[in-house]
């Protein structure tokens, strides 16, 4: 009789937001190697972009990611404006910042919810997602859509945010701040969350540099990189806010960085609104008549890290080459460092800690074994193990 047990669920299954496929090679409970396969979601967007006009490409790249849908148009706009050497109107700069930061808030809230779910805190999951709703409602008020806002275009933005909406935005943000306080308090003070996330999935500074990891993943390991500060675009250079970092590099540090970043985002939006009050409505677009031949390297800080767009143009109305690099492309590869040596029950949260976004990169399932019989676990079993561990710790704490 063979000991092998294979439960093939996935690569499409609802562990996280999207299709994904990791292979965890285990010896007993310990993960000894991680392998990653990707591909089901490759949509050939870079190739497709070469067949579309610049105007159309904005809508195309907005569909790369469902969660951070504005970060790609943001980086693409930056690269086109770099090629055509155009300065966009101030009001458009502030609107871009507002959209970018609202998106960061809802993306981080989404992650906090998912992280709670992985750890067996389904209340955190439900509350975090509930608090995320008003942010999506704000998007609907501003752009007419909860997601894929189609706000960006080369030379500015497509819609203005009218002064009459400011009061509502401010009120919702102050409500949101209270909720973020609540979530931050819950995470920072809970001994069980500490036990489950501290010293788990640790990434050192050297690992971050070797894998060129980005965003909160890098900042949680003490690497203070943030494109908004390093190479300021839109209005970020003229606003007062801080880059949040932590030194530990574990899952807890990553959670802390994301939670505290939401306060900075709120600060940025409030300042942008204040500055916008002094600029007359309507001046939101510099018309770009033609995009000359050249190359543009635009980047933008998405919730997960730097999004990078390389555009080569030849003077026609479509890009010759459009290379897109999403942050998860660099961050996911760090699993080799953060998961190896962990127990299987810690693997789920370590994998989730970088807030992997697979539309940009891609899928998961879980396999086991190395030396003994094969045992392939699926994503649900993996989450269950993680949740069971939390339950055990909770019982001990009681």
């Amino acid at each position, binding site marked *: 009789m063979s000991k092998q047990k294979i439960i093939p669920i996935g690569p499409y299954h609802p562990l996280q937001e999207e299709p994904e496929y990791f292979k965890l090679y285990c010896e007993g409970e310990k993960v000894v190697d991680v392998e990653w396969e990707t591909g089901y979601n490759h949509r050939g967007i870079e*190739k497709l972009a070469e067949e579309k006009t610049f105007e159309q490409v904005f809508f195309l790249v907005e569909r790369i990611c469902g969660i951070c849908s504005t970060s790609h148009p943001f980086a693409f706009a930056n690269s086109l404006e770099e090629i055509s050497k155009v300065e966009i109107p101030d009001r458009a700069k502030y609107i871009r910042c507002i959209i970018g930061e609202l998106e960061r808030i809802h993306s981080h809230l989404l992650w906090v919810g998912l992280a709670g779910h992985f750890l067996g805190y389904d209340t955190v999951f439900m509350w975090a997602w509930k608090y995320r709703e008003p942010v999506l409602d704000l998007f609907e008020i501003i752009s007419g859509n909860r997601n894929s806002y189609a706000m960006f275009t080369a030379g500015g933005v497509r819609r203005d945010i009218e002064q009459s909406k400011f009061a509502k935005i401010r009120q919702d943000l102050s409500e949101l701040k209270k909720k973020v306080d609540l979530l931050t308090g819950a995470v920072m003070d809970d001994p069980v969350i500490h036990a489950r996330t501290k010293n788990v999935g640790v990434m050192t500074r050297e690992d971050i540099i070797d894998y060129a990891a980005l965003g909160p993943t890098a900042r949680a390991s003490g690497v203070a*990189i943030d494109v908004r500060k390093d190479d300021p675009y839109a209005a970020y250079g003229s606003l007062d806010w801080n880059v949040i970092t932590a030194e530990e590099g574990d899952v807890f540090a990553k959670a802390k960085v994301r939670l505290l970043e939401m306060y900075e985002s709120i600060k940025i939006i409030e300042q942008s609104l204040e500055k916008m009050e002094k600029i007359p409505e309507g001046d939101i677009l510099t018309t770009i008549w033609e995009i000359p031949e050249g190359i543009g390297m635009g980047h933008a800080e998405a919730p997960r890290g730097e999004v*990078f767009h390389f555009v080569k143009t030849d003077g026609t109305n479509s890009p010759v080459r459009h290379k897109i690099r999403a942050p998860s492309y660099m961050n996911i590869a760090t699993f080799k460092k953060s998961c190896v040596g962990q127990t299987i029950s810690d693997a789920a949260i370590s994998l989730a800690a970088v807030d992997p976004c697979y539309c940009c990169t891609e899928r998961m399932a879980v396999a086991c074994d190395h030396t003994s019989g094969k045992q392939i676990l699926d994503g649900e079993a993996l989450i269950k193990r993680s949740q069971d561990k939390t339950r055990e710790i909770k019982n001990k704490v009681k």
Partner: protein
Amino acid sequence: MDNKKFTAEIKEKFADKIIEYQQHNDLRLTFAIQPEALFECARVFMKEKQFRFIIASGLHSREGFEIFYHFSNDSSGHVINLHVMLPHEQPTVDSLSELMSAAEWIEREIHELLGINFKGHPNLVPLISEGNWPEGTYPYRKDFKS
């Protein structure tokens, strides 16, 4: 980072290896270099200058295959490119994966989509297709008909 000082230093180090230097604006520079100098040049960027590797963009043009290696100097906001031009027939260039793990995936991807070989890559297997594309099919080449 002072552009003049930096370019002078790089030009001195790799004098005969630099084909062309271009400054797109204050924060965007491109060095077109001989492919054989790529590894050493990247090593200087990564290890001596502490630049961050952003990504590499491969493209197919009339002249051959081009790769732009994008590096970022996070302390000053510069994006510095290394550009190599490879021939149509058997395009090959040194792998940077020995220098940093970050280059492994993108080299696999470029190998798969454009058919460029990376010498010294530890695991040059397909990243996207799982090997289920017909051999010799490179979708990002300009002659590929979709």
